[in-house]
């Protein structure tokens, strides 16, 4: 039986990598993948705690998160494609002209 703390530690590591990726990466797709990473690290926490407390509601949350993530991925990729068509670049720092 793997102790609970290992799951939580792994989850925390993955989440931190995701956060760091979002902040550091300039490529929009890479940022996007990092966001997915964060979502999935949270999913891992949910599953682990759900199993630990013998409560299915944590697993239900995971389904919701996955659904939302799928929808968000579709919208996000759509935006990315549009941005690429317009700017020939996926560097998010280039896409900073809206305020002007």
């Amino acid at each position, binding site marked *: 039986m793997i102790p609970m703390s290992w799951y939580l530690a792994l989850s925390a590591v993955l989440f931190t990598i995701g*956060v760091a990726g*979002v902040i550091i990466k300039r490529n929009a797709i890479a*940022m996007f993948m990092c966001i997915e990473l964060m979502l999935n690290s949270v999913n891992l926490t949910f599953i682990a705690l759900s199993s630990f407390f013998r409560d299915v509601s944590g697993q239900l949350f995971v389904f919701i998160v996955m659904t939302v993530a799928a929808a968000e991925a579709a919208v996000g990729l759509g935006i990315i494609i549009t941005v690429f068509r317009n700017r020939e670049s996926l560097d*998010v*720092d280039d*896409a900073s*002209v*809206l*305020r002007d």
Partner: protein
Amino acid sequence: MLRYIIFAPLAGAALNWLVGRWLLKRDRPNEALIGGIACAAVGVATVVALWLAFRPGTGVLISDHVELDSLWTWIQVGRFRADFGLGMDRLSGIYACFVTFVGLLIHIFAVGYMHGDRSFYRFFAYLNLFMFMMLTLVLADNLLLMFVGWEGVGLCSYLLIGYYIDRKEAGDAAKKAFVANRVGDWGVVLGIMLVFALTGSVSFFDKTAAVTGNTAVASALGVIAKMPLDPFTWHALIAGGVTSTALLLFIGATGKSAQIPLYVWLPDAMAGPTPVSALIHAATMVTAGVYMVVRCSAIYSHAPTVMFIIAIIGAATAIFAATIGIAQNDIKKVLAYSTISQLGYMFLACGVGAFVAAIFHVMTHAFFKALLFLGSGSVITGMHHEQDMRRMGGLRKYMPITFATMMAGWLAICGIVPFAGFFSKDEILWKTWSTGALAIPNGAGKALWFIGAVTALLTAIYMTRLMVMTFWGGERFRDTNAGGQADAAHAQAYDKGLAPHDAETASVAGSPQDVGHLADAPTLIMDADEHAHEAHHGPGEPHESPWVMTVPLIVLAVLATVGGLVGIPYALGSLVGGVPNYFERTLEPAVAKAPERGGAAGHEAAATGQATEPRMLSRPPQQVDGASPLSVGEGQQGEPAAERAPAPAEVSMERLFTLVSLAIAALGIGIGYLIFSKRPLRPLPRLLENKYYVDEIYDAAIINPIKVGSREGLWRLLDVKVIDGLVNGMGRAMRETGDVVRRIQFGFVRSYAAIILLGALAVIGYFVFSFAR
């Protein structure tokens, strides 16, 4: 039974509207069938109306039976209740009979007059729809349903005035009529509301639960009849009582019945086809105002101030329109002003309390004015759509039947002795002189009589001028420069692929002009006789109309000749062995009596209450063929005044006045003949020819300010600056706020992510910190 009277014309309208276009489009235009449908629909209504009015035993006009027909409860909200119910008492019985009968004759005439028109079916659909609305107006058993008919006839009037849709002046005239009527209708709506507020009912009749099918309904008029008399003061007009109600309803009547100040639409309405002018703008619709006033006589007899106003407006309109009529050159315009003038007479009669005389004049006027209009239609057709009398003359040789029938109408409107108009006009004048109504101050009756008498003189003059210019004198239709403009109205409707009609070139004598009567248009109506006629004289010559047009003329001429004999006043009837006044005896119980000067108010209220409600009649009126008027029911309280023998002095006075009005008529005819037979084209005062510039004054005083105010004030200021400014300003405000706020953004996605992280850390840190303690 009553429902058939109104729904038969509606069915005819629907049928013609649905299949008429198809019938007309086939290679053989089926005008006879379309016209036949329309005439049959009105024919059914006529037969049913006459049957209900005169059926033995329970005929509405010959017994005290009131025919009621409740179809369904239309509106029921709280205390307010309006049925879709019809009622025929003596007043609406008389109206229904002459509306359907004259309407039928005009329908038949129209089959001939509209021959060759490209939307023949549309005309008859509208005409039948009009009959439906008019009969709804007349037969409605409550004010609200009457108002439906009231609006409906306005709509049909609009549609038919603007029937020639490709002519701008027709459209303008239609709009003018509609708008002028709207002004009046505003008064009617408020009046109906006020009646409901005062009485809690809008019904004309007391209806039992058995009739309505659910609850009993009380008559609004009956309630008002029991109210105390309103005082004869100007203040009563705005007090919100019976007087205010009467005034508001009368405002509607001035619109519908073309009285000062809303009469301006009627002369322009002559842009419609002539049968329309005869049916709507002479015989039926324009008398709807008189009908309403007499129907609501219980209200008016309680509002002496309004009675006085009605008498003054009626007299003023009568003389005003008569003077204009003298100087018009369009044959239909003369008749239009004559109609306004005669309507003025009717209101004068209402104002002095002679409601019966008013309705009598409505009926005789329907006969002779419909006759005159149809006669003018026949002349217009015969002259190939020429309406200008300056281009006529000498037509009696060419159109003998039209001439003979119009003679009857002419003598009737002038008031020559056996003709219909004589009895009704004479009765109005006598009642005006001798009125004892509380509403007419001492002496005012004499002054009003004088105005009426002068109007009678003018009437005789202008009608004689019309006859002289049209039927006597030189044949001016061959002249090239007779002046005036041809009316292309009727002409343009006849586009059957032939060359443009002659109306534009009518002044050129002898030009081939036969489009109105297409020789090649196959038809069942046009008889072969007409072809022979055309061959007989040149195509440009005037010709007599076909039989579909002359037969209605002849029938109406008979009615215009003998129609007045049903209402011979006592003073004359007693001269020839006591002929009773059938008309007055029939109608007297159905209308309220105006209070007399010096009469006891309580007694009057009781008497009016009794007189207004036919169901409460204390005795059945005599059969028409009954014995001496004095033998039955003598001395009873609800007895009609006509049955009592007037004082001998009064009778001889009335006879004297009859002679006076005869003399006036003869004088008018004489003057008219002397002046106009020598010089038919005699120039007349420009002021009269231009109708006192009333249209121009209205333009300057009312229409232009509204136009300018709408354009500059409402459009350029309120709409563009205020409303658009508000909407656009909102948008601009948003933009400008955004311009300011967006400066705090810097646009790097990763920075936002970092800020979110910091924020999340801060929140977590806070919780960790606070829970750790």
